[in-house]
């Protein structure tokens, strides 16, 4: 078969279909992963001892377990106790749980880096603890957490490939199917790789711009800009 025909009429359309699924996976996971990360970090830092312990244990367990095993648990394990997800939903749930735990660590680090006096000052002005967290602490902490959070976002892009292992045909899966059918392993996976490199590189640039845009003039950036 002609190389060009294979590339433009078989490989490329398949990869684009896969890319759509990959982007859907990321779009469904990232916002909730961020929200979960904020909730867990705040819960661990400012919650009562029980909440704090729960948040800590959650992060401990997720960080200790391979994501692939977590996906197996969600997709193959949970049906045995009566909870059935589609492969796509199981992947998204797995990504949210994993992304949330790692995000929480970065956000917690940023929360700690905000000086205690700010909380005292906010409460002295009559704010409740919760108001102070929401209006004073978090807006600063989240900005400081951007480099770490964007690293995690890039990990999410890459680890979304694991959804293929529980039968979601996303970018890697699409590449694998074409590779197996036409016996074009190197070409197909190289093409898949290029798409990931493009995604990751675009994200890196976008994050740098975002970081500059949300920067508050006069405040110093705590950590150097994100790398892959």
């Amino acid at each position, binding site marked *: 078969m002609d190389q060009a025909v294979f590339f433009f009429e078989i490989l490329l359309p398949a990869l684009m279909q896969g890319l759509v699924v990959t982007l859907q996976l990321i779009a469904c996971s990232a916002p909730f992963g961020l929200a979960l990360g904020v909730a867990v970090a705040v819960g661990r830092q400012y919650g009562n001892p029980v909440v704090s312990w729960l948040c800590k244990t959650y992060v401990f367990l997720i*960080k200790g377990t391979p994501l692939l095993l977590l996906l197996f648990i969600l997709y193959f394990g949970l049906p045995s106790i009566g909870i059935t997800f589609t492969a796509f939903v199981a992947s998204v749930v797995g990504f949210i749980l994993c992304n949330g735990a790692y995000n929480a660590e970065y956000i917690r680090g940023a929360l700690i880096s905000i000086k205690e006096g700010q909380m005292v000052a906010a409460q002295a002005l009559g704010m409740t603890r919760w108001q102070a967290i929401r209006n004073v602490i978090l807006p600063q902490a989240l900005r400081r957490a951007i480099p770490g959070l964007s690293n995690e976002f890039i990990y999410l892009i890459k*680890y979304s490939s694991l959804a293929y292992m529980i039968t979601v045909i996303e970018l890697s899966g699409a590449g694998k199917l074409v590779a197996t059918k036409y016996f074009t392993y190197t070409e197909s996976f190289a093409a898949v790789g290029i798409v*990931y490199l493009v995604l990751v590189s675009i994200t890196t640039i976008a994050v740098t711009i975002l970081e500059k845009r949300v920067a508050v003039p006069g405040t110093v950036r705590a950590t150097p800009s994100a790398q892959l």
Partner: protein
Amino acid sequence: MDILPILIDWLPYLLSGIASTLGLVLAALGLGVLLGLPMALGQVYGARPVRWVVGIYVWFFRGLPILVLLFLFWFGIFPALGLGELSAFIVGAVVLGLRGAAYQSQIFRGAIQSVGEGQMIAARSLGMSRLTAIRSVILPQAMRIALPGWSNEYPNILTDSAVCYAIGVVELLTITSRMVTQTHITMPIYLAAAGIFIVLNYGGLKLLHRLEKRIAIPGFGTGAM
């Protein structure tokens, strides 16, 4: 259903799976240091083409998902190079190592750069060659600074090693799946496997932190990273 007898029945397989997983991790960490350290030195002290090549390498191996790298090397690159006979374990270890080298080189690079430039100048003015200065002055300090960051590579590689399941390496996750298929007990076995991974993860980290304390030089802070 009681899970314990089944785990005991499968104990030899589980242990071989754990050994295989740890083998992957150790091989990858070793290869990562072996390749990552020269790469870091190349990036800091090398000529422009060297820095450029290392930069591309790092960009490539950090930009691709581990699953795609494994597929690419296992199905594509190694067979094309006539290395199709290599076992999945070796390919898995090599790919984890090549990728680990990309991440670790950046940890080493940061550590080398954090040793002040004046040290190199001072060493040179004492008559040391550049290489001697790197070996006897810069690296002994840089490696200690790098160790905490490097230790954190261990859990990353451990959790990534599970993806080697995809190319048929018989490691812990593969054994787990086989147990599930043969016994039809799912959740308890998966959770037990998660427990084993967690123990390996934090147990290994604890050992590494102990190593950090051991090789620390009194009065020489390693809190830089």
